[in-house]
């Protein structure tokens, strides 16, 4: 197996520039992690 395999490409830092539109669904813990960003 590979020594270290990274599953993710996007980082939170990258969403800091373009995020914050507020159009995503209200979430009730369901839970923040499961919603895809609408934009």
């Amino acid at each position: 197996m590979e020594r270290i395999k990274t599953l993710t490409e996007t980082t939170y830092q990258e969403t800091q520039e373009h995020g914050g539109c507020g159009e995503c669904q209200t979430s009730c813990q369901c839970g923040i992690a499961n919603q895809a960003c609408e934009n």
Partner: protein
Amino acid sequence: MIHQYKMNGYNIVVDVFSASVHVTDDLAYDAIHLLDTGMGEEEAEKALRKQHPEASDEDIRDTFLDIQELIKANKLFSKDVYQKAAGYLKQQSTVVKALCLLVAHTCNLNCSYCFASQGKFHGDAGLMSFETGKRALDFLIENSGNRRNLEVDFFGGEPLVNFDVCKQLVAYARSIEKQHNKNFRFTLTTNGVNVTDEVIEWANKECYNVVLSLDGRKEVNDRFRVDKAGHGSYDKIVPNFQKFVKARGDKNYYMRGTYSHYNTDFTKDIFHMADDLGFTELSMEPVVTDPSSPSALTEEDLPILYEQYEILAKDMLRRERDGKPITFYHYMIDLEHGPCIYKRVSGCGSGTEYMAVTAWGDLYPCHQFVSDPEYKLGDIWHGVTNTKLRDEFKECNVYSRPDCQNCWARLYCAGGCAANALHSTGDIHGTYEYGCKLFRKRMECALMMKVAEAEMAESKAASEDAE
């Protein structure tokens, strides 16, 4: 901050502040752990040699080189740089984008564990009038600023007890949404008793999502979910739900169950709903109740619940391999297109951009605060008059909760539920620790599933290449 754990044969490393998820071999897993204890690289190399005498010098050197590359790329041991983002969404001019309409403070069931005291919210029974509901929708439009997507939940009590008003309110919203450049998304949460052909047709046309309450196996569901005469609801509601879901086609729905101390083997309820009843979109939530209640979950239950969540994750992977997947809401995680960091630090928006409206037009931070006069925000005619309370909710984020500061999962949960925090600690800035423990376990399972799914996709691609 990082979080390391082993599950289902995988070594998983989560980098908390970058969102990076790594799968490693044993050597890298232990090397990362040594660095995480605060060791310098030289010291860690020595310690790793002791732990892994079978590893060659080259392997050990390469392992640390790989780790250094990830650190340089800000994908391992990355720093927390998001404190400024906390409150960004809420410090903007206050907009409201979602309302929970409590159209019925009454219910045709009599569930003993109901947080809303059988729909009456510890107060008088009553139904929302069309005029009150209409004013609530106008209030939402007036206060929504430039937000286009507006959400309205029909909730109760049992909203279908007041179905005519639900229909009238949707018709009213549809008649005005275009002129205001808004897109109303309605959802319905129902116990299933009053689900008729007319309800199904209306909901499938108008409701973006429906939440159908069912606790799983008949004996489990009928322990709590009973009618006024004490009769279980299972035989009545299951055929209604099956008809509803079948007619719904590919539109959103999910079965929403509650598990308690009486059914800590809750995966059996999930599998019953999937295998015996044909539902594929599923959610089972831990009961939140007075710790002295016999149905309350206990510390002794935790290891059992942890095991149940792992059983569920592994079984869901099996179903995926068999081509018959099911969805469990807490395991839906989008690693690439999930919410932005602003959303992740600021949470659900209760009390600021999301509010509950009672049948009489009073505003509360969410449906779980209704009936507590201390938490009344105002009403739909005068707006939010208790601005001090709204400001307190504006400050609700992962940085305002001391207990979250050492939690690896905080950017997946955004600080948790303010209502649960209030009920368990007396403070909306507290945390409901029992819920946190279950949340962290669910996230470990969800991330493990992502690792396994990536592996499945890889081996599928490899076998296609070989052909």
